[in-house]
């Protein structure tokens, strides 16, 4: 199951490699609570993915437009506003911690950057929208950050380079009780340590 999920993920990454991935809220997410079951189940499929080593061979099957399979990201790439590394937000569906295809290229870039620069530290800060209970959302937000961390580790980020934080629904990006605000708030933020 795990391998299958990853294969799908990688093939999608390969297909979309020529496009510039846009970081934008996932607006076509499930409306209402009824989608909860399915998305949660998808999240559970990735149980126990703690590192990328067992999939090491897979990373060479796709091409990234700005960084070829075995390329090294220079440390300075982080400050290039045109780099994919400039995208620091990942958005999620309602009650879901699943990373959707549209964010895979961005996260592959960050994963490879961290692999090339093992001294760099990254904070992943998970958030939810305002719906549902605060404490459940706190747990869900941490889970979103953890999902991003697992993804980055698949591409070579070291576990000690990436720390995970959950802020629940407490720090919204957008105020307001509507679909637009909600989809903007269901997010994980990639925050590079300014001392890097």
């Amino acid at each position, binding site marked *: 199951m795990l391998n299958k999920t990853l294969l799908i993920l990688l093939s999608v990454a390969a297909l979309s490699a020529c496009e510039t991935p846009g970081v934008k809220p996932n607006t076509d997410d499930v409306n209402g609570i009824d989608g909860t079951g399915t998305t949660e189940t998808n999240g559970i499929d990735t149980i126990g993915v703690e590192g990328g080593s067992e999939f090491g061979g897979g990373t060479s099957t796709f091409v990234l437009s700005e960084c070829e399979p075995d390329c090294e990201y220079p440390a300075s790439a982080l400050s290039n506003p045109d780099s994919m590394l400039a995208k620091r937000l990942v958005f999620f569906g309602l009650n879901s911690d699943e990373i959707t295809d549209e964010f895979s290229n961005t996260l592959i870039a960050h994963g490879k950057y961290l692999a090339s620069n093992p001294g760099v530290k990254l904070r992943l800060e998970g958030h939810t929208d305002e719906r549902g209970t605060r404490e459940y959302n706190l747990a869900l937000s941490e889970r979103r950050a953890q999902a991003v961390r697992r993804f980055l580790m698949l591409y070579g980020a070291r576990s000690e380079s990436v720390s995970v934080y959950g802020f*629940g629904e*407490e720090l919204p990006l957008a105020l307001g009780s509507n679909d637009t605000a909600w989809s903007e708030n269901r997010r994980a933020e990639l925050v590079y340590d300014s001392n890097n």
Partner: protein
Amino acid sequence: MKNLINTVLLLTLIASSFNAQAVLNVRVTKSANDAQPIAIVPFGWSVEGEAAPADISSIVSADLERSGQFKALANADMLTKPISGQKINFANWRSVNVDHLVVGNLRKVAAEMYAIDVQLFDVLSGKQLLGHSYPVHKKALRKTAHHISDVIYEKLTGVRGAFNTRIAYVSVNRSKTGQKIKASYSLQVADADGYNPRTVVKSSWPLLSPSWSPDGVYLAYVSFRNRQAEVYTVNLKTGAEQKLAAFKGINGAPVFSPDGNKLAFTSSKSGNPDIYVMDLRSRKQTQITRGYAIETEPAWSADGRDILFTSSRTGGPQIYSVSASGGKAKRVTFDGRYNASVAVAPNNQHLAMVHGAAGKYRIAVLDRESALLRVLSDGSQDESPSFAPNGRMILYATQAMGKGVLAAVSVDGRTKQQLLLTDGDIREPAWSPFNKQR
């Protein structure tokens, strides 16, 4: 549902000196039509040239009306206004159809010291049901008025009153400078009617999940002051804070055990959120739940033997119950796909929770014996249910006019009210235990 009248009763009251700007509105949005008619006559006061230091009868009327079980006669409809039992013409009161009558007198006995005399009568028989005289310091006048409400409520309903209690909640004030929104959070404690609000903890980072110790001295709560969710307690008498759980990951949802010796909370220190129980003396922790699912929002059963909690083990959040020493959990909720944030009534029979359906999150009560779930609130993002210590009302957070407010609903759903504190966004209410002195 049909036999209910919707009444909107707006009592605008000015809050005390603790927070001169806080204006409190209590709006009874729904009351039962079989509420007992009662007359509470304005209390006597006879110090020349000095205003009465408190309006005892208004406080008592507002309390009793808030329960939804009483309907107080308007002062304008009173034919006479006796201040003691000797001068009552019961025929007058029978003619305005009240069942019970409260009369009283406020006296000054020394500087800052007063006495409140109060009597309760059955109007039909003319029999006195209660008669008390309370010596009171000026500062305790409101508190004593709430105590009088408790005594009357218990005499007439057989259930202990919960008016002389407190509530804790989080108030948020947002200010915008340019594009940046700055929020300031304060954990506050007020009387159960919203009066005398006082800030206990202030922070520029979010505060949440206040929970009372059974002796009413401590609040446990969650603070992000160190950029991650950590569990603290604050002593309400001294203001002293203690950090109890700050493990790697999230630390949240603290709740004291009914005996006050333990604290259940959530921690993701093992990699994903699980319930732990901490012995407050030794600080030793026991892990209660395991597995990949989100497990959070613990609540103790009334006898302290079990812990109810939210788990995502079957997909969406549902309520489960497990022995407080750990073991196999049993699923408790089966209605719908979102049930979370459970609160247990003192009778252990009623469970209040947030129930999500069709995009709306509302307060529902599950009767464990009949397994019937009843949705009691009608907002779209109602949260944080908390039982009154007598189990009759549920306090919760809702939205009104674009901001967070507190509301209360009776467990049978027959009466509902909103507490509107005008400054800030109010959320995360927790009703205190009973006051120790009866």
